[in-house]
């Protein structure tokens, strides 16, 4: 990727300014303001309390866990924790919003002024400023498939805690936006505040896009709501930027509006026009007092945070000497990193071990449509296999066969090697016998080689190893062949 991302219009180049608003569903047992279950999957309207259904006279009570998850996330984003924050009501009518308002934070969010570092492919690090993090309620779910002219309402999701995390418009390309979402998701996974599953809606993204000519001030932005995959973020930004450039280059102007991205048509659709602009009538929720946090509790939560991705990356670089590519894959997911860490601890060569994990294990899992957590091979088992190669017990070639069996059966490398008698041999007399046989069988080629066809050397190596059923130590094979053919 270039240092800067530009879109070439008909009348020159355009830069993008992108801000992201992520809605991350908080991991907790109960909902933000009620005691009903947050993790969903239950029967329709069974994870709903009287409070969630906004029955007359019901009142919200805040869940400590949700508050602390927001604090932990904010700390991981190096944000300032506001020890005094306030909940407000945001009013609009919608069938999935039982109260007729969403309880959210507005003027005084729980945290502000954070930062997220992006590891750009060119090896540089880019800082993206985070404006605010606020706690708010999720809405229920509307189903339109049940009936041709009616909508069905399920409130199981209503009232689950969300963290809205708002970035400054610091991002300048779709790729940076993708990296940002990925990194934020990774951090939340590391500290277990959000599972980050975009398909299930645990993480939803609104994108603010504006375009400008280089060195000009920020343009008017449009908001694209509720994007639920990384691929769509990419497409939506490109589409929206091109739409805006097209308008501007034709002498038009951008109206601040809210849009939806239609992934099927790959098109941006306007949601609310200006004249229907909502007036949310925010005001402090009189049912809820100010949320006041104790600095010592915040400090405690900070001290209890696990190692975060940036710190882990730095440590992996210095301890394991990994490539940029390897690091990205291993740190992509906390499970990957934890798995690798166990693997590396027991491996003589952590860098080779990383190759095995990434190319062989991930390759096989991918092919089988499985996740790392489904793997029958444990980090310890893979480290044993890798160490056997390192120690010269088996050849790399044999190792691949052994790996395949390990992957299928979950057996250890040692037992497979024993069972199938696959130990590498370095016994010179055995190898010499095989070589002699090969040279006799291929006397023609020996002649050709001696006449100067050097390329045939590797043919003899291959044949010898083949005849040894892969067990002959290739270094010794090479040595002996040189002695016999070149002397």
């Amino acid at each position, binding site marked *: 990727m270039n240092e800067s991302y530009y879109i070439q219009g008909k009348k020159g180049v355009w830069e993008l300014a992108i801000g992201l608003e992520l809605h991350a569903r908080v991991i907790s047992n109960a909902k933000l303001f009620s*005691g009903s279950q947050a993790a969903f999957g239950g029967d329709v309207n069974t994870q*709903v*309390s009287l409070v969630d259904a906004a029955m007359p006279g019901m009142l919200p009570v805040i869940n400590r866990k949700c*508050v602390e998850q927001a604090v932990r996330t904010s700390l991981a984003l190096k944000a300032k924790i506001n020890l005094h924050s306030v909940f407000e009501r945001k009013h609009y009518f919608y*069938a999935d919003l039982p109260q007729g308002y969403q309880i959210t934070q507005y003027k005084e969010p729980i945290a502000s002024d954070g930062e997220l570092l992006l590891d750009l492919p060119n090896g540089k690090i880019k800082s993206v400023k985070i404006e605010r993090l606020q706690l708010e309620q999720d809405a229920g779910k509307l189903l339109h498939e049940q009936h041709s002219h009616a909508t069905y*309402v399920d409130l199981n999701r209503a009232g689950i805690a969300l963290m809205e995390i708002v970035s400054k418009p610091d991002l300048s390309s779709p790729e940076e936006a993708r990296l940002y979402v990925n990194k934020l998701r990774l951090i939340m996974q590391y500290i277990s505040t959000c599972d980050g599953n975009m398909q299930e809606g645990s993480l939803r993204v609104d994108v603010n896009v504006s375009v400008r000519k280089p060195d000009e001030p920020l343009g008017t932005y449009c908001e694209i709501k509720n994007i639920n995959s990384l691929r769509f973020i990419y497409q939506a930004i490109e589409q929206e930027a091109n739409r805006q450039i097209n308008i501007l280059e034709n002498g038009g102007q951008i109206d601040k509006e809210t849009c*939806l991205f239609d992934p099927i048509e790959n098109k941006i659709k306007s949601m609310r026009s200006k004249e229907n602009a909502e007036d949310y009538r925010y005001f402090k929720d009189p049912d809820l007092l100010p949320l006041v946090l104790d600095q010592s509790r915040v400090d405690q939560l900070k001290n209890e945070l696990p190692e975060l991705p940036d710190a882990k990356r730095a440590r992996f670089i210095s301890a394991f000497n990994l490539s940029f590519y390897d690091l990205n894959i291993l740190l992509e997911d906390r499970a990957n990193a934890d798995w690798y860490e166990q693997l590396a601890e027991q491996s003589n060569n952590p860098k080779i071990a990383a190759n095995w994990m990434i190319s062989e294990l991930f390759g096989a899992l991918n092919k089988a449509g499985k996740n790392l957590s489904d793997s029958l091979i444990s980090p310890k088992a893979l480290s044993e296999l890798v160490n056997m190669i390192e120690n010269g017990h088996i050849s790399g070639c044999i190792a691949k066969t052994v790996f395949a069996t390990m992957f299928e059966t979950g057996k250890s490398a040692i037992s497979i090697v024993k069972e199938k008698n696959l130990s590498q041999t370095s016994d010179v007399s055995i190898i010499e016998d095989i070589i002699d046989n090969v040279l006799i069988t291929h006397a023609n080629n020996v002649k050709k080689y001696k006449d100067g066809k050097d390329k045939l050397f590797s043919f003899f190596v291959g044949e010898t190893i083949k005849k040894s059923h892969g067990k002959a130590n290739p270094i010794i094979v090479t040595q002996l062949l040189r002695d016999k053919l070149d002397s």
Partner: protein
Amino acid sequence: MSIDKLTAKTLANLARIKISEDELDDVVENLNTIILMFNKLDEVDTLRVEPLTNITGNFLSQSDDLIIDGGYQNQITSNAPKVDRGFFVVPRVID
């Protein structure tokens, strides 16, 4: 300040209430009588006064993260105008 018919209609729309054309004059007049009373507050300089939103002076108590509620679909839907298989049913919502 006072409101005109258009503002009254906008407010009504925001609140999902319909004011019919023949009520409109009365509604606007009544609202303006009351709003006129509000304007009395302009007499007071409140520039340096903090708004009072929390008369208790207390802060939010936080509950433990326990699943102690829900699980009663019947109670949730027992007063609903229209229910099908546990869902609330409403006229079609078009996104």
